[in-house]
């Protein structure tokens, strides 16, 4: 009976811990919002983060998008051929990219690249007392460090998603038309026929929400780092894992609401 009760005890504790952490992240979000509407915004810091999150992620996002589009076309082709519906390959790739894979894969790549960096950077600033130094100089750390990163995440992940959608469809086209021999006109026509603007918009709304999640969690983990270099490493790993999981879980619920 002892072992069972310890197990239940531990389970209870970990549930409590997670709920508490979610509450803290929510509180941080509220504080970010309240600093966001208080001028002056630190434009220079925001642009710097937008460059870091957006411009510097383009390469990985293009690579991810193009190969995802290509493999979707390849897989879809083999499936659809069984029903002689090869002409639907283009629209399947386009729908899959705009609704799901564009936003999800983009935000996972940005999590790995920028979310982790946010945690590492803020974590280092925490353990080397730079965050303390900010507060002492009456400069609010949330305003200086977190607001620019969250704004950059919310704005740039959708932009990157547009890029991923576009190159993904392009990748699908290059595999579908020249390699697999689907008629080019039909490929394009079916895309415009089955893909609504709403699909794209909803995908971009998802992307913005994922951008919020990954930057908020990256900053939260970094901000609450303790325990030297080891602590920074731990915060970085936890940020990537928690952000990725949160993106995938929220994706399910967003899809359920939107489509």
């Amino acid at each position, binding site marked *: 009976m002892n072992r069972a009760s310890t197990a239940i005890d531990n389970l209870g504790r970990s549930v409590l811990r997670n709920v508490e952490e979610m509450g803290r992240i929510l509180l941080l979000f509220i504080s970010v919002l309240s600093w966001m509407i208080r001028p002056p915004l630190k434009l220079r810091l925001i642009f710097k983060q937008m460059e870091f999150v957006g411009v510097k992620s383009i390469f990985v996002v293009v690579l991810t998008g193009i190969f995802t589009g290509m493999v979707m076309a390849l897989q879809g082709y083999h499936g659809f051929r069984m029903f002689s519906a090869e002409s639907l390959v283009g629209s399947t790739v386009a729908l899959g990219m705009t609704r799901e894979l564009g936003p999800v894969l983009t935000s996972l790549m940005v999590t790995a690249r920028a979310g982790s960096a946010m945690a590492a950077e803020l974590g*280092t*600033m925490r353990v*080397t*007392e*730079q965050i*303390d*130094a*900010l*507060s*002492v*100089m*009456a*400069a*609010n750390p949330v305003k200086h460090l977190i607001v620019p990163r969250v704004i950059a995440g919310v704005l740039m992940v959708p932009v990157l998603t547009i890029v991923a959608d576009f190159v993904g469809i392009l990748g699908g086209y290059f595999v579908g038309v020249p390699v697999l021999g689907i008629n080019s006109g039909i490929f394009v026509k079916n895309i415009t026929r089955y893909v609504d603007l709403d699909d794209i918009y909803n995908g971009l709304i998802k992307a913005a929400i994922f951008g919020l999640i990954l930057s908020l969690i990256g900053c939260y983990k970094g901000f609450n780092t303790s325990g030297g270099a080891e602590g920074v490493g731990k915060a970085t790993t936890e940020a990537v894992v928690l952000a990725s999981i949160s993106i995938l879980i929220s994706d399910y619920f967003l899809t359920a609401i939107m489509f």
Partner: protein
Amino acid sequence: MIKIVDLHKSFGKQKVLDGVNLEIEEGKTTVIIGRSGGGKSVLLKHIIRLLKPDSGHVLVDGTDITKLNDKDLNEIRKKFGVLFQGAALFDSMTVGENVAFPLKEQTKMKDSEIRKIVADRLRAVGLTGIEEKMPSELSGGMRKRVGLARAIAMHPEIVLFDEPTTGLDPIMTEAIDNLIIDTQKNFNLTSIVISHDVESIFKVGHKIAMLHEGKIVEYGTPEEIRESRNPVLVQFLSGSTEGPIKII
């Protein structure tokens, strides 16, 4: 004036501050000494509320800062300049931007004025012309001095120095001690210095306080401290391994 009343702080089971009582005189330099790991930095962080005590009070000009909201706390913090033990320079900014930071944040000075002040403060710490360098390109002692320049950039009313001369050569130590003494005199600063350097302590301090086992066990002028028969102080000043301060 700063008054610390019955301050208690523990981290987990470890009691670090166990009823600290101390009055910091206005316009004077108070040196806090004590063994490494004894809680000096922790005490300093309570004075600007980077840490909240488990119990007790910190009064700055009569205001209990342990109970302030963020907005009022910010106003109080503008009176302070702080040199952290590890300098805590912003490593995403140049040296110049670091020293300029409090001026940019808290004043409406023109950029040209700020540049002049930055150059002046860097000259005072013996680092003329390194504005464009990044903190990662500096030695430990140089970083410390840039941190010092940043702490006094605003000419705050109160300055907290956490080991300003640790890691400096004897000549630089002398120069920094003099800088602390001069700025204190010229601007009538209230300053709190944490130091291990026995010579500096007597040179810089108007008052000296010894922190031991979470309490202030001795407080007085340099002369009183020098004459003190308190075994803790005797051992500390002579650097002996024998006595009430256990090294394990």
